[in-house]
């Protein structure tokens, strides 16, 4: 009984073992890897993915997908930069406005998906195109830079030795964990993703929950966009291009099932870290960025494949039992 429990724990945390193996590998392969400075660098690099992955975790828990977050990041880059530089608005106000806009975009995704019952893939893909275009329109295609110092702190400041983006990521993960584990609507995400019809027949307002989840996805993408802007000190209309895929990779690596209903926020953190360690380690080993893409793709395939094989086996076992 006790041995079983240990085994179960190991099984549910296998992703951390994978992370550990990877850290050991890169430590052995490169003497520059296992230094405080470099590890802090890794965490700093993944902060933006990490922040956005909280929202994506909810979306994938529902069995959905959100392809619009890369464009939300780009748009928020431009909107915030434009408001601060061209309009001279107060940075705090800009932050609030940006988050309002990004949440509203997510909310609109949610409304269209739940009310019109359109497929998530198409709705968020359309939103991706629309808001990428809007970002270019606002800035006329040219980057905007030179922000007030009070804003740059978000991306470049430190609390003691720890970079502020990392602090923000940790806080966001804490909030993300709290929502999914401790609040009643967080539990609805699991119920809905597991079985939408049964969830509805248990009295859950399915449409409302979907709107909430896509709104949260927009909100967290907005925060990621602001951190990115402050770190780069330049607002680029293509800043977020391709981010959705990296974020989806993090979440899926973190063991959130793409069919919905199962996954843990605490494991998504490991998924995010794996991507960070992988990128950093490969740079240290002088692997070309093209080869890095190949490796990332293969790892994604393996992660999802492992999940699918396990599910298939479970089903077979069940069938045999019946």
């Amino acid at each position: 009984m006790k041995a079983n429990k240990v085994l179960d724990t190991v099984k549910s945390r296998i992703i951390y073992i994978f992370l550990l193996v990877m850290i050991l590998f890169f430590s052995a392969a490169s003497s520059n890897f296992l230094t405080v400075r470099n590890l802090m660098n890794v965490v700093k690099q993944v902060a933006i993915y990490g922040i956005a992955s909280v929202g994506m975790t909810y979306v994938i828990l529902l069995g959905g997908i959100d392809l619009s977050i890369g464009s939300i990041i780009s748009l928020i880059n431009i909107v915030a930069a434009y408001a601060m530089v061209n309009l001279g608005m107060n940075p705090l106000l800009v932050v609030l406005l940006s988050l309002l806009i990004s949440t509203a975009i997510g909310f609109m995704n949610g409304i269209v998906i739940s009310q019109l019952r359109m497929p998530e893939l198409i709705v968020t893909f359309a939103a991706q195109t629309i808001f990428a275009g809007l970002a270019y329109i606002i800035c006329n295609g040219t980057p905007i830079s030179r922000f007030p110092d009070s804003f740059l702190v978000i991306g470049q400041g430190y609390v003691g030795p720890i970079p502020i983006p990392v602090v923000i990521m940790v806080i966001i993960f804490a909030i993300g964990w709290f929502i999914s584990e401790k609040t009643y609507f967080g539990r609805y995400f699991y119920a809905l993703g597991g079985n939408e019809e049964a969830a509805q027949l248990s009295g859950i307002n399915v449409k409302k929950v979907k709107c909430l989840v896509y709104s949260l996805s927009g909100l967290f993408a907005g925060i990621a966009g602001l951190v990115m802007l402050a770190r780069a000190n330049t607002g680029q209309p293509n800043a977020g291009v391709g981010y959705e895929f990296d974020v989806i990779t993090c979440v899926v690596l973190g063991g959130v099932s793409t069919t919905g209903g199962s996954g843990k926020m605490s494991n998504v953190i490991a998924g995010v870290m794996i991507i960070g360690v992988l990128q950093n380690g490969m740079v240290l080993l002088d692997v070309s960025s093209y080869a890095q893409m190949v490796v990332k793709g293969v790892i994604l395939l393996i992660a999802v494949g492992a999940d699918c094989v396990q599910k298939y086996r479970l089903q077979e076992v069940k069938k045999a039992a019946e």
Partner: protein
Amino acid sequence: MNIEDNILELKHISKYYPGVTALQDVSLSVRRGEIHALIGENGAGKSTLIKTCSGAIAPSEGEIVINGKSFRRMTPKVSEENGIGVIYQEFNLVGDLTVAENIFLGRAIRKGIMVDFKAMERQAQGILDSLRMKISPSALVRDLSVGYQQMVEIAKAMSQNAQVLIMDEPSAPLTNAEVESMFAVVDLLKEKGVTIIYISHRLEEIFRLSDRITVLRDGQYIVTLDTKHSSEEELIRYMVGRQLQEVYPKRDPGCVQDEVVFEADMVCGNGDTNISLQIHKGEVLGLGGLVGAGRTEFAEMVFGARKKTSGKFFFKGKEIHPRTPKEAIAAGIGLVPEDRKAKGALLGLSIQENINMPVYHRISKGAVIDYKKARNTAQQYKEELSIKTPSVGQMVKNLSGGNQQKVILAKWLAAESELLIFDEPTRGIDVGAKQEIYTLINTLVEQGKAILMISSEMEELMGMSDRIIVLAEGCVSGEIARPEFDQETIMKLASKERKDG
């Protein structure tokens, strides 16, 4: 010596599933050129039997003889090659292809790698003409009415030279006018010498069409009758003629109170018409009828999962308009659905979460769940309903059917529902757990809950209900009080045909 010319013989067919005997030693002979009706209650084994003929399932024991050739089991291919065609209730047609393409699906007439549409349409036209069906071979199947789609299915079977055509409840999806056209086709096929096995629960149709009738009951062969020398009364007697076997736990007969908890007044929608009924405090109202009679559909409307188009619902004297399950639950209604795994339980979540799901917002402080309360509630119902599990943290998918059913029930008790709707409460549950569920139902009505119980099991319906309302084709066809409970009366009401057009 066998002087009869039997085209199809089933000999000693049995089919066992773990814990369930679907067919037991069924033997049946079908004569060449006859229309042979197959009849029986829900779950009598009709569908299983035809699936052994079509090759969809393999019998555990027995032998199938077609045209003198003997088979241990069929496959869909062998069955087709030997001239057996099946018209299922669900059509196997591709909506976006033409009639001709559907008739020749998988056997398209080709010129090299190209499909020869002209030749195919010409041949399809020939088949349709020979069956006197006025359908254009170039029409898309999607654009046809259900009746015409069924004819395309028949034409498809005929194009494969089917000698035996098995029709599974062919009249169920059709309008009255379409049924007439279908009869005409069936008569024509008989003239052409095709043997037909006709499955239906509408006795009128069977007397109109068939030459002989075989009755199945509880997976067993009962009798084969000549239609000419039989009567509806006789058939019904054979269909239901079983002794009540199960013992139903007794309950205090005085627990039905005068107070009406729930009332439906001329409710229409979701396939039902003008349904009126009342359920009292402490009463089990049984809702009987055949599969597809509109019972589950009614429950869905009460529970807010489907919209009613007219009529009124009253709950404890006040009119309610449940538009979503959430609203119905808030009013005090709970539904234990028929398909436990698809609709009832959240299999991937724990017992505790399942039980608390409808009340999570009630037991939360702000948005934060009071897990202590949640745990206590789950623990309380685990003990009250004796859910067998080491802990309430156990995932529901790891429980047995009976225990899953108890978890679903517990969630409605936690939500303080006063009207509980049970849709086939004991389907797929083993005998011991059944008794437990019955005892629980008794406890609930003794506590003053009102219960609407949908059941296709005649015994269960009669054993557990205080009163039975029977539905047929979306309408109330009768109401029976406990002293008048009688299998034949219920069966008669359930097979009533709608008289209007």
